[in-house]
């Protein structure tokens, strides 16, 4: 492993963790979506770099999907949804931004402490990627549980999937089936989510998850 190759891979994967942390403290929907686009862009670069250093050409496809689909198409679609629903407003962050960031930092530390000792045998790039991608996954989970808004829930989930793609790209020689399926699943996910967002608006007059939480099938009499 050449020093520079490793350093760039390390820089890009670390960049994803930083952007994940950025996602945590966005308090406007448009800003959240723009940062998500940046997240996907960094992912595309990281996967593209992996494709180059591993000489695994199928990974360029994965990088392309990340770039076109996740960094351009989905953010544009989400912008449109927000406009159509007229929900352009500030987000409620449960428990405040400071606490979120502290929790985020703790999760990153946890991911590294768990992953690095376990993967001593694996090669260095895969090792770094796996630790960082676990951090991205955990930060995505944190984003999902801390937001009341359906759109930010979706963004949280997609940032989590970005972390998974990073892990899959770092695993040397992992067959293409998985990457395509991940991209494919996100495509279907968007369709499902799109339908849901519109239906939710129709029935609840809000995309605020608390409006839904108040309603439990069990209490209906």
């Amino acid at each position, binding site marked *: 492993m050449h020093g520079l190759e490793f350093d760039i891979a390390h820089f890009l994967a670390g960049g994803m963790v930083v952007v994940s942390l950025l996602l945590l403290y966005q308090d406007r929907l448009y800003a959240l979506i723009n940062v998500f686009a940046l997240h996907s862009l960094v992912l595309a670069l990281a996967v593209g770099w992996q494709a180059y250093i591993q000489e695994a050409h199928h990974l360029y496809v994965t990088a392309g999907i990340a770039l076109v689909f996740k960094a351009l198409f989905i953010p544009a679609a989400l912008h449109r949804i927000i406009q159509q629903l007229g929900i352009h407003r500030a987000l409620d962050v449960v428990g405040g931004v400071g606490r979120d960031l502290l929790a985020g930092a703790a999760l990153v530390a946890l991911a590294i402490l768990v992953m690095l000792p376990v993967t001593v045998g694996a090669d260095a790039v895969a090792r770094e990627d796996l630790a960082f991608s676990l951090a991205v996954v955990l930060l995505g989970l944190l984003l999902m549980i801390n937001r009341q808004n359906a759109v930010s829930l979706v963004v949280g989930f997609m940032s989590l999937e970005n972390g998974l793609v990073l892990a899959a790209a770092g695993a040397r020689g992992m067959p293409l089936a998985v990457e395509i399926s991940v991209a494919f699943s996100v495509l279907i996910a968007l369709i499902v989510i799109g339908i849901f967002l519109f239906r939710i608006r129709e029935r609840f007059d809000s995309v605020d998850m608390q409006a839904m939480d108040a*309603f439990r099938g069990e209490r209906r009499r």
Partner: protein
Amino acid sequence: MSTLGLTAMTALLAVPAGAALLLVGLSNYRRGARLNVGAALISLLASITLFWTRPDANVYLRVDDFNIYLIVLNNLVSFTTSVFSAGYIAHELETGRLTPKYLRFYHAMYQALVFAMNLAFLANNIGLLWVAIELATLVTVLMVGIYRTRAALEAAWKYFILGSLGIALALFGTIMVYLAAQPVIGQGLPAMAWDQLLTHAHAFDPALLNLAFIFLLLGYGTKAGLVPLHAWLPDAHAEGPTPISAVLSGLLLNVALYAVLRFKMLMSAHPQALAPGPLMIGMGLLSLLFAGFMFYRRGDIKRLFAYSSIEHMGIITFAFGMGGPLANFAGLLHMTMHSLTKSAIFFAVGHISQVKGTQRISNIRGLTATHPLLGWGLAAGVVAIAGMPPFGVFMSEFLVVSSTFAREPWLALPLVLGLLLGFGALLWRLHGMAFGESHGANAPGPSPISALPMIAHLALVFIAGFWLPGPLVVWFQHVAVLLG
């Protein structure tokens, strides 16, 4: 010889996939229902063919001793459910809860689900298994939300978010298994194939394998509805169409459990890896006891039986967690018995909620007097699922309890407590619903033909209480040893 097997294996995937495409374009719902039943029947016949002639495994698909039997069970229940669904759906159309446009979509999704579940069982590749379970999740999300009511959308949304999270964790675990396998087997597809993984599992890095298993257990455990990852399950069962509740409970939970068991086999094949037993025993007991307590406050009949599914998934996970030939045997038997019984119960419940026009338990009274077939059918189903003799569930639960007493007497205490809790609640609820003074709406019952699937399932469970066919016992014993 193996050409026939290959054809059968291909048919198991191609028939549901082709039928799903055809059904999208078919606007007549009667023809749609007939095509749905026909396609399910062909898949069932194809799956039975596999008993005689088994195709050679390739890097993507494989039929082996473990999955063959579950494939047949899967196609049997999806066939009987499609028969039940034809009658059920006609009624929903009359009452206007569904429109022909949605029915077209419903039938296509049904076949897509059968395709996804068959693919999950047949997959020889852990990536393909993941894709199949992801597909099954997305399809069922769409079906749960099909009524478009507030409650149905809430249920579908919750299921979607929790299901996707589970799926995401499982993918992370899958990638880690590949990373553990890659230095030993080499890069590429073989490092994701079950047969290769199992032969080389002893040489994998144990720490990586341990971490992978935790992710896989949490991920696929969410799909299997194990406590504390069960929150989606009661809502999804209660708010979707009843045929889907039957398939979710009877089949999809089995698919998720099958995935966990496959990875458990990998763990058992490695001497230094973490023993998966205690984790599975813990989650199993927790599910069992939690569901036992939750039974008592349920007001909705489908929710009641959804919690019963959590309870039984708990028992099965517990049994496989105990391990050893006897407990594994009991777990496999219980998996089969639960599938058959629970889908029979949902068939009865579907008709009952249609004739009564409600799912509220307090509005359902005296069924044996007004609708003898449904009332007694439900009674038989509940008695069976509560674990009373002479039904097959009694036999499998008895085996679980006795093997636990023999090996870990202290664990038998919470196990028996959980079983008794469920037993009491179910019989108490049954008494109110089946007997006493009838009141409320009383539409005429379904035709005996649409009750056939229920009767057939109950008959199978009843027979299994006395006698299991010889080949089945041999198969159970063989797989029980494989599972370790």
